[in-house]
């Protein structure tokens, strides 16, 4: 009688429990990895987007306060608020990026680790004035800038196609602000 009261698990019970346990561990691991990947993606995406925004806003601010614009489809040269010569143009070496050059000193706009630069295009209006007219007649009133970049996250690259419009403040002045 005493031996009958000792109860254990049958082999089938043990296998079923082990199988359920393994399945749960597998699901939990997948969820954990998904969660970690999402967190990493979110963090690096935020960093990349911030880096892009910082660069794009820098360009926006300089154009807003700039004057004497000389434009081609993908580069821009003008005077900034201190009447320094400023050039913005793409480069392909050592890697694709935008160059921000003030009085011959050049800096990269985007961090290569965070943002992969693809293209930069500028669209602008056609002022009616001639160079001999007052500044406000020959100054560009609007620029539309198109950036194509890839935001680098640790897991994937996220393409970004951003349009920015800017109306320079100095385009209403009678005289050239940097004369």
């Amino acid at each position, binding site marked *: 009688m005493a031996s009958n009261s000792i109860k254990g698990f049958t082999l089938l019970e043990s296998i079923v429990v082990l199988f359920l346990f393994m399945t749960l561990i597998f699901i939990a691991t997948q969820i954990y990895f998904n969660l970690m990947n999402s967190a990493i993606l979110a963090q690096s995406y935020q960093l990349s987007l911030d880096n892009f925004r910082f660069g794009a806003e820098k360009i926006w601010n300089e154009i807003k306060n700039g004057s004497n614009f000389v434009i081609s489809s993908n580069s821009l040269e003008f005077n900034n608020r201190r009447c320094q010569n400023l050039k913005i143009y793409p480069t392909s070496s050592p890697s694709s990026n935008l160059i921000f050059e003030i009085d011959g000193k050049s800096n990269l706009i985007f961090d290569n680790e965070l943002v992969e630069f693809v293209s930069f295009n500028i669209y602008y209006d056609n002022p009616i004035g001639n160079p001999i007219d007052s500044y406000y007649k020959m100054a560009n009133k609007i620029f*539309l800038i198109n950036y194509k970049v890839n935001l680098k996250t640790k897991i994937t690259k996220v393409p970004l196609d951003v349009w920015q419009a800017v*109306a320079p403040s100095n385009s209403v002045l009678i005289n050239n602000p940097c004369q």
Partner: protein
Amino acid sequence: MNKAFTLTELVISFVILLLSVIILVGLSFNYLSILNSIKLRYFALNVAQAGIEYALALRNQQIEKGLSPWAGVSYKGTYCLNFNTSNRRIEVMSSSNPCPAEFPGYRRLITYNDFIDPNNTNLYNSQAIRVSSEVYFERDKIKLDVVLTRWHPTQ
């Protein structure tokens, strides 16, 4: 002596298990939806700002041509403003519905009002205009306002 689980015990344990799984999955999706929301709002802000910039540029262009600063938008109401990259002009169209903007899926509507007398419908000689740029995207909306005056160094 043989003991087994009751149905209630089983159901409760499964519900607890399921809840924990749902919470974890929800957390991971939450991260991604926040990301998407940041991107959508950043684009929307750019579209709204572009509307304000077009309004500013349009005022400056009309002055450049020797016209009233509000020529083309001289009646209180809503308009669509866009920059045509082919003919390089700011295009103005009176509209009560928002029009497609630079980013696919975003629509913008610009409202012109007299800032000093909001009941004034003819803005041609107004001294100051409130310009609102409203952007509609997904099921959301953002709005930026600016007050433009007639002030210009040439006037």
